[in-house]
């Protein structure tokens, strides 16, 4: 399979977008993955589910603004160069 670095960047942007569009109220709380439902234990072992929820929440918080910039740049470039 011929992968290029460009396809890696595309994959990264698409995956980050996918994590960023998970809506807190409409979706994550409905399936029990909300912010208030995950991080309970402060013990020795947070567990995989708590780590995943933490990761989703932090990606959504941190990457919101950079994703706006990157997506706009992508749109402009794709419009110009196809």
């Amino acid at each position, binding site marked *: *399979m*011929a*992968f*290029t*670095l460009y396809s890696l960047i595309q994959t990264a942007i698409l995956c980050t977008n996918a994590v960023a569009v998970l809506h807190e109220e409409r979706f994550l709380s409905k399936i029990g993955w909300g912010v208030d439902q995950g991080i309970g234990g402060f013990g020795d072992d*947070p567990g*995989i589910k708590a780590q995943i929820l933490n*990761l989703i929440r932090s990606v959504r918080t941190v990457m919101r603004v950079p994703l706006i910039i990157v997506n706009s740049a992508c749109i402009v470039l794709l419009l110009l160069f196809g």
Partner: protein
Amino acid sequence: MDYTADQSGFRQQPTMRLRNYSAEGPDASQLFEDTSGVGSASQSGLRNQQAGPQSSGFAGQSLLSEPMSNLAMAYGSSLASQGREMVDKNLDRFIPISKLKYYFAVDTVYVGRKLGLLVFPYMHENWEVSYQQDTPVAPRFDVNAPDLYIPAMGFITYVLVAGLALGTQNRFSPELLGVQASSALVWLIMEVLAVLLSLYLVTVNTDLTTIDLLAFSGYKYVGMIVGVVAGLLFGRPGYYLSLLWCCAAIFVFMIRTLRLKLLSEAVAEGKLVRGARNQLRMYLTMSIAAAQPVFMYWLTYHLIR
């Protein structure tokens, strides 16, 4: 136990064991021998160059002897050294050059031993990385320490051998070298990211850094090169046999190396410690080690027809 440490999940560099990268002087002599004899050598070369054109008598060359040009040259060289300092300082923020130097402090004996270990890890007894006052010893002094020289050279050799293999089948074109290189690089990056993600999810407290993981993932290129070369020399049976051997060797190598880093002390010594967490870590080690043969086959099977 340190609860704040555990809460942050996968800590890449606990305070216990830090790599000492601070000073250039004593560290440089530890990692590399100082073979620089600069200053006197370059200045005498410059004076020789000045004497040459003057004796040949060209009118334009007398510019070099004027005092203003000396001043200009001194200013230019100070500007160049200032620029170089600025570039070094800014580059160090993005790519940790001082940390990278540790991984390239190798010598021929180490490389030979490590390559032997990569294809025959069955006789090696002690897999622990030795430390020297909380900092890991340079790879030159300890065959168990990870390095980046073998993976880097292995990657480049793999690309060249792939080009050679494609050439023997008349499928070669110069663009294919770039395609092979970027493809292998992308798989490497994805593998390192996947391992990082799984280490984060399983909350392993380890002192494996990203560069360590890059080094471990890069060791499989040695096996791939051996397989492809055997395939070129002996055809498909040779390829399959040597790939099988190298896959088994890499599997054992990864398990024995990662066991000491990922699992707790008790499990690493061989006692069976039950518990969900240790089982999860064992599965993680197994899957990282099992991914190596898969990648090795995936990246080389299209080269042998």
